[in-house]
């Protein structure tokens, strides 16, 4: 079929005050 269907779940986590799951990586760059 040449495509792949990937269902995912939406999960919830309790949090206090500080919200935001920031999975942006801290890119550490090297001089090229």
């Amino acid at each position, binding site marked *: *079929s*040449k*495509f*792949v*269907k*990937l*269902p*995912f*779940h*939406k*999960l*919830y*986590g*309790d*949090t*206090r*005050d*500080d*919200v*935001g*799951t*920031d*999975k*942006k*990586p*801290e*890119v*550490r*760059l*090297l*001089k*090229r």
Partner: protein
Amino acid sequence: ADGYEEIIITNQQSFYSVDLEVGTPPQNVTVLVDTGSSDLWIMGSNNPYCSSGSMSSSRRHVINKRDDSSSSGALVNDINPFGWLTGTGSAIGPTATGSGGGSGTATQSVPASEATMNCQEFGTFTTSDSSTFRSNNTYFSISYGDGTFASGTFGTDILDLSDLNVTGLSFAVANETNSTMGVLGIGLPELEVTYSGSTASSSRRPYTYDNFPMVLKNSGAIKTNAYSLYLNDSDAKHGTILFGAVDHSKYAGTLYTVPIVNTLSASGFSSPIQFDVTINGIGISYPDNSQKTLTTTQIPALLDSGTTLTYLPQAVVAMIADELDAQYSSRLGYYVLDCPSNSNSTQIVFDFGGFHINASLSSFILNAGNICLLGIIATDDTTILGDSFLTNAYVVYDLDNLEISMAQAQYNITNENIEVITSSIPSAIKAPGYTSTWSTSASIVTGGNIFTVDTSQTASFSGNVTSATASATSTTSKSRN
């Protein structure tokens, strides 16, 4: 007398996950789906941050440190969320040379107060219990913007992902992480830690490897390295990523294409390494059909499923808060507002170069008892369009052509209309402002008009927004049908 009111926000930190079966016999772990990174890693069972089992909270363990003097030109220091590593020139983040060693090591204890994670909920992986696990002795280390980090070693094993066999895909087993769950990064290969991350080393040239989307393409499972992300509405329990195809039933209007912009060219990257697109303007649409443009200053923004909320420049958040009569609480760190009764019909409008994505205000409202908080966070760093934005859009990430196609998401659709992507994104057209992209940072100014033409259609044309001249005052206009 010393009472303290604590605002509790429950069940609003959402994240999107898939289940993996790893090893022989299979071990079950759950990972977060992340377009903002590019590596797959799972938690090892020996993680000292876990609170139960054999993982003693007082167990001492070794953190390999690298002498940072060998990596001149580093722009961003590795984060150090707990501040134990105080050695001169040290940083979390061993090299990726395959030796697994840096220039020195230090023995550190995880503070007992930090070793409290329940690691059983999302599963851990015991390499010694799998007869098919093969380590390739390459160090892995990553840190994220929320202060979480993971480090361990790359390897391969039998790997099934939602009944899809992807054995051969390299993944890391983190023997040390303060994150409760692993991550399935599906970004560009250039964002892999071995290329642009802290494990890229001066002792070995940065390199990329085949990550999950690349494995799908190279195995022939998909024709092009592109996928469509559909988070569904905010109340939905499931969403879908369609690799190699578009489901035309999941969006309304036209699918518009914009280029991914390179926000890191000044750092030596000749092409984009992450999914940044250009926001050409932001406005608000009210239930009475009145509309207001807040800014037409171009802003690069990361489309990141691994971030729950949305992060905009401070000036833009202040404009939105002003419109909503929200007041900033320094104690809470959020703008506070009366819970709006019409948050479903008030929309934050994002112009991406001649077409709009209308994001319901309710997507950005956090309920906290009798008050509400604005879940749009001011940042001086990267603008991030997280899940709260993405739930409003149908987004096609074209990794081969470095383009993003977007349209207004449509919910509660049971049928499918799937079309395979063979080269370009089917039915997508270039946005009117395709070539008007961000190039340099500029101060946010008010003014301009993103509502110059009919916006009653989703993802509709908005005229030549880039020619709008910024002025000292914002513009309010009615849509014309």
